[in-house]
């Protein structure tokens, strides 16, 4: 995948998840962030930091994106949620 097609989602612990932009756009909030007309830091570097979202959660979120996004071919077949992770 090319760099322009990806975004980096960074969790509170600093873990970086690089996923396809189309997948990330599933979230309206992230979409607004990335397409906002202003020159916010996010749009410039193509990175979004979530200081209040833990890594585990962020990972699940990424998996969710991949599951429902139009690019299903990259998707895992299931999402396994371990309640003890919370």
């Amino acid at each position, binding site marked *: 995948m090319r760099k322009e097609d990806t975004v980096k989602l960074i969790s509170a612990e600093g873990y970086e998840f690089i996923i396809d932009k189309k997948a990330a756009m599933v979230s309206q909030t992230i979409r*607004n962030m990335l397409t906002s007309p202003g020159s916010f830091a996010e749009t410039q570097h193509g990175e979004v930091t979530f200081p209040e979202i833990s890594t585990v959660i962020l990972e699940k979120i990424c998996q969710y994106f991949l599951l429902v996004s139009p690019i299903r071919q990259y998707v895992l077949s299931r999402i396994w949620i371990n309640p003890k992770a919370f």
Partner: protein
Amino acid sequence: MNNNQKKRNFQIEAFKHKVVVDPKYADKTWKILEHAIHEIYNHNASGLSFEELYRNAYNMVLHKFGEKLYSGLVSTMTFHLKEISKVIEAAQGGLFLEELNRKWADHNKALQMIRDILMYMDRTFIPSTHKTPVHELGLNLWRDNIIRSSKIQTRLLNTLLELILRERTGEVINRGLMRNIIKMLMDLGPSVYQEDFEKPFLEVSANFYRVESQQFIECCDCGDYLKKAERRLNEEIERVSHYLDAKSEAKITNVVEQEMIANHMLRLVHMENSGLVNMLLDDKYEDSGRMYSLFRRVSNGLSTIRDVMTSHIRETGKQLVTDPEKLKDPVEFVQCLLDEKDKYDKIISLAFSNDKTFQNALNSSFEFFINLNPRSPEFISLFVDDKLRKGLKGVSEEDIEIVLDKVMMLFRYLQEKDVFEKYYKQHLAKRLLSGKTVSDDAERSLIVKLKTECGYQFTSKLEGMFTDMKTSQDTMQGFYATHGSELGDGPTLVVQVLTTGSWPTQPSVTCNLPSEMSVLCEKFRSYYLGTHTGRRLSWQTNMGTADLKATFGKGQKHELNVSTYQMCVLVLFNNADRLSYKEIEQATEIPSSDLKRCLQSLACVKGKNVLRKEPMSKDIAEDDAFLVNEKFTSKFYKVKIGTVVAQKESEPEKQETRQRVEEDRKPQIEAAIVRIMKSRKVLDHNNIIAEVTKQLQSRFLANPSEIKKRIESLIEREFLERDNSDRRLYRYLA
């Protein structure tokens, strides 16, 4: 599988937010956001983190500080807009609009960024508290602080109007800038666009065009004025398409139409030397077409044109039909009518886009003035006669049809169709008997057209005439087949047997045929009566023709085509060199007026004078003497003398025909009355008149007093009776 066990082990609890303890939490969070908004307006947003701002706004709303966030937003934006307003006000001259445009673009961008950050509030807090959403709020604040600010409002409007004025006077202005500014007004809401711009724009435009139209109409002629008006109209439409709201098009075009066209409509149409009448006379298709398309846009525009055209056509038509010069030659007269019709058909199709109402106006005008002249039916018949005799010689079939269709069109305009029928019968008879018709097919084609138009009854007698001609041919063949051998060298006889009812009645006249002829005629009579018993034949000597071979003094031989009367006279000279008028009269027993005419054509017409008269005067006197003109010469071998041509009737003839027509109408009126009364049984006076007129409309215009007379006559003959109680009511008697 143990499902229950699985269920108990796995539960999902609601997500619990961390409870905020810090009382100044809201203020701190707001400060961050306020700072961010400032930075955005100062074009410094590159350092900000979207995520952080979004999260902060989210948290404020979540912890029930939405109100603080919202009011903070309002005050911050208002503050910035006031700053911007000052900057715009400070801009000089032409830079004013540019500055406004630039700041507007900036504001929009900032607004979008702010909205994105505050998306959560937009989605949750605002709908539940029914506040204005962020984007709309931004527009409203812009509107209130900038557009409607006292220093900017009027200046903006004036600048815009001035630019439009300049463009109207031919200058080129920055249309892109105009478009952006107008779009800004439109984005702020339809009321802003309409109140702050459109209304004053329309007013100013109205004034502008009022003044301009006044100037133009003083100095331009109609065609030029219309060109200018059209140009202005197109200009405005183009202006709207380039930088105004599409909905304004109808309004501004309305203004132009009103000021430039509607207010000056009558003056334009009636303008001297260049108004509508002149356009019609000079076939100015482009100008009148322009007038049509422009006037169509205003109410009553087309009806104004139509009325002027109608009265003009009626006027010229009336002049045409009452002009004594034109009436001298009927064929010329009818040709003029056809030319007029063609002219206006062309105008209506080229300039007035075949508008049906105009066609109808044209038709009614023609109907009006054609019937002003009572001789129109006669003249139209004469026109047809001329065409069928010689006018259509050598013309192709389609062209013949075209001419006949045109004649039919004129026929339709006639009110007195029965008069036409009478004349047509007379002329047709003459044509058939003298064999002078150009094309049989053309004759029949016209009969068919008349039948389609008026029904079988109209043409039954005419068709009878054709049948008679055909039958006569067959009879002649039969006659010569049986008697051919014994007739041998004698004169050849061609007889046309005419059924009395079909042909126009002629009084039978006396005429002594030369002996050779009378013998032949008798033979034919006995032959005919042999095959058709119970019929009576009488010779119509005033309608026949004869071909004579003559040898003159120097041996020149000629074949003379003459009328029967003329033949009788000429044959006399086989046995005498010189005859006086009285002798001729006695010998032939032809009535004197006919005889005089016949002798005139034999002796007094240059180039056809086979007889010499003494004295050489033009008129025939009782004691004139006639001799054969031995010196007669002609370029042609065959000489035609005195053909019986259909002519315009003289006064007494006209009166006679008219009388006969009136006589014929009486039974038709009576038949109509009886028909109506039979079905209605009882009817009052006015209704009878109306019904009768309607029924007879296709043949002639019935006179109410004549109808009344017929009713009286029917009452006398006990077909109808008057009601005992109501004098106006009539009852049918079976």
